[in-house]
């Protein structure tokens, strides 16, 4: 990884190519989501919560595979989903630190990404007059929106954590032969706790735009069946069923 602020690029002959289908995501089992896309993504895949291994803070993610490094949604060259999480779409661009103290965040590019090329075959970032291309302007807009959505997502996570809305589960995969395998460290919305909320709390969640994502993520657990079907299509072993176990 070589995350460089777009403003500090000193070469202007950079181009982007090969992003079609986002092949970099082929072994991504979990993808961060922003709150604004939860409803859409939940139509395709399970939306759950996990703790960040480095900070212990909760993140909202899409579950794409039933084994480590497995992405069942992406079967080269195509995706089995209608929509693709923004954090996949953005590559090789990202939001990263743009000052020495690493306090300010802004649009960056990962110069080590396979998508970045100096050949002429890709989509250029700059014109021959060293001005931003329309493509780069669209990327910057996309990142600016994503930055705002990230902030809102943090607010969403803080809210549901404070309300005690998350509870731990494991996903039990039962193969035709052999022992059950279990995915642990996963969290979902606690439906019972949700039902105990008074009208004011529910109203507040609705006003914040959080009620829909909460229900969407709950309902998305049904997509585990879809993951299981995709697993059985793509893998040599067969799963009889996949169930959610409350902890």
């Amino acid at each position, binding site marked *: 990884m070589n995350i460089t602020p777009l403003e500090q690029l000193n070469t202007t002959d950079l181009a982007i190519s090969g992003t079609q289908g986002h092949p970099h995501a082929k072994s991504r089992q979990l993808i961060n989501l922003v709150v604004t896309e939860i409803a859409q993504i939940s139509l395709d895949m399970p939306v759950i919560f996990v*703790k960040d291994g480095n*900070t212990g803070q909760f993140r909202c993610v899409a579950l794409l595979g039933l084994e480590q490094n497995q992405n069942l949604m992406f079967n080269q060259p195509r995706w089995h989903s209608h929509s693709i999480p923004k954090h996949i779409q953005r590559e090789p661009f990202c939001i990263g630190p743009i000052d020495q103290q690493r306090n300010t965040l802004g649009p960056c590019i990962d110069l080590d990404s396979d998508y970045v090329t100096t050949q002429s075959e890709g989509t250029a970032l700059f014109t021959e007059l060293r001005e931003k291309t329309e493509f780069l302007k669209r990327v910057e807009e996309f990142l600016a929106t994503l930055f705002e959505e990230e902030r809102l997502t943090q607010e969403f996570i803080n809210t549901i954590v404070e309300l005690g809305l998350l509870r731990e589960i494991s996903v039990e995969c039962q193969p035709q032969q052999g022992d059950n395998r279990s995915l642990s460290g996963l969290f979902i919305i606690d439906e019972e706790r949700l039902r105990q909320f008074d009208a004011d709390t529910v109203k507040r969640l609705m006003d914040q735009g959080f009620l829909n994502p909460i229900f969407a993520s709950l309902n998305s657990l049904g997509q585990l069946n879809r993951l299981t079907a995709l697993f059985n299509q793509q893998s040599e072993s067969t799963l009889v069923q996949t169930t959610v176990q409350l902890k």
Partner: protein
Amino acid sequence: MTNPVNHIVIVGGGTAGWLTAGLIASKNQPLDASDLKITLIESPDIPTIGVGEGTWPSMRRTLREIGIRETDLIRDCHAAFKQGSQFINWCSDNRQEHYFHPFNPPITTSDPFEFWQRQSGSTQSFADCLDAQPTLCEAGLAPKTITTAEYAGTLNYGYHLDAGAFSTLLQKHCCNALGVRHHLQNVQSVHRAENGDISHLITADGQTLQGDLFIDCTGFRGLLIGESLQVPLIPQGHILFADRALAGQVTYDQPDQIIACQTRSTAQSAGWIWDIGLSHRRGIGYVYSSNHISDEAAERELANYIGPGFGNTSVRRININSGYRKKFWVNNCIAIGLSAGFLEPLEASALMLIEQSANMIAERLPANRMVMDRLAEQFNQRQHHHWERIVEFLKLHYVLSNRQAPFWQENREVSSIPESLSEKLQLWEYHAPTAQDFSAESDVFSWISYQYILYGMGFKTEARPTCAADRCAKLSQLRDRRLEQLLTQLPNHRQLVDKIRQYGLQTV
């Protein structure tokens, strides 16, 4: 006589007072609904003693019940994790040795000695043979990860904490969240009714404070239980010789210096030195017998232990008076904390006893004055049993030593050893300790703890090997696999503490 207990007055606001207030209040929430009033009155002038910086794993349950976040404990009290005790140079004069008494249960809780005995061909210590925790401690690893929920652990643990900051945290929570009333006022006089009960206190500003149940948390002074009710202390100095402590605080040389995840206790010529790692400093102190060493010589030994940093260390001398009250609950007054008694902190029993006592009261808060005498009888019986057993267990550490200085030799004189302990030691020459050796009452130290000390210190039990060889092999394999896993899975203790201070832990 059936006067209901509606007002509990706790006198003294150290950890004893606030833990007691917190446990009683949290079990009776909301206080108004149960017509209960809890007042804690403390002197604005008396500083807290500030020893007792090590806790048992029981503190996790206690704090969760009171409703304090583990993240707040780590941040506000500079707390770090404790996975047990390490005893250094306790066995003999001539060699560098140490042994562990870890918190984690051993890999087999049915026959730990038999399992270890079967492996006698190996040079593995008792503690290492039974669990991975000692090795993980020495590797500087934490008992959990940043993604583990508050109060949950991969390995069993308690805390090392700053006792003063701990009182403040408890106080804030008790007053802000649990409805405990707080008076900062000196008690001028204690007044008693005809039946001997404490009826009220008069404070320095002339106010009268009436109560139905009084809890004495006034520390060594024992304002209610001792000065007013005249309940004597039963001294234990003839068994446990230490009567002084020199306590100091040492800062870390580097901000990323390792925080020991165990209490380190190192034997000296006339006692032992405790070494407790918090996130911002170490608490170090020498517990010694003034009959065996002068204060100056003791200070030199402490300086030796601390090294060059000693010059910057301010050292406080504390006189300690080993012993406990003849009764802890008399009439309508209960002593909790140092007012109940004090024993050297060799196994960090002080805070545990406070939790124990406060829980017993909170779980069965006397409904009225009539039932109090019966509850008091139960309470006294149980607490006496605890104190006796702690004295016996602490003495065990001294009895098994081969150190030659007069302090250590005298500790092995039969006249200083409780008979109950001598009898058990005779039995254990031929049979390893089991639950059968102890009364059915819930005991503070289990028979497994006894095994850790006995075999950690090289005690010999001539028992016939009974653990089947294939079971032994399986257990060893299980333990080794677990160790290997945890060595890669668990984070560095210092790094985890820093991370919790920065990000916090989740409650689920």
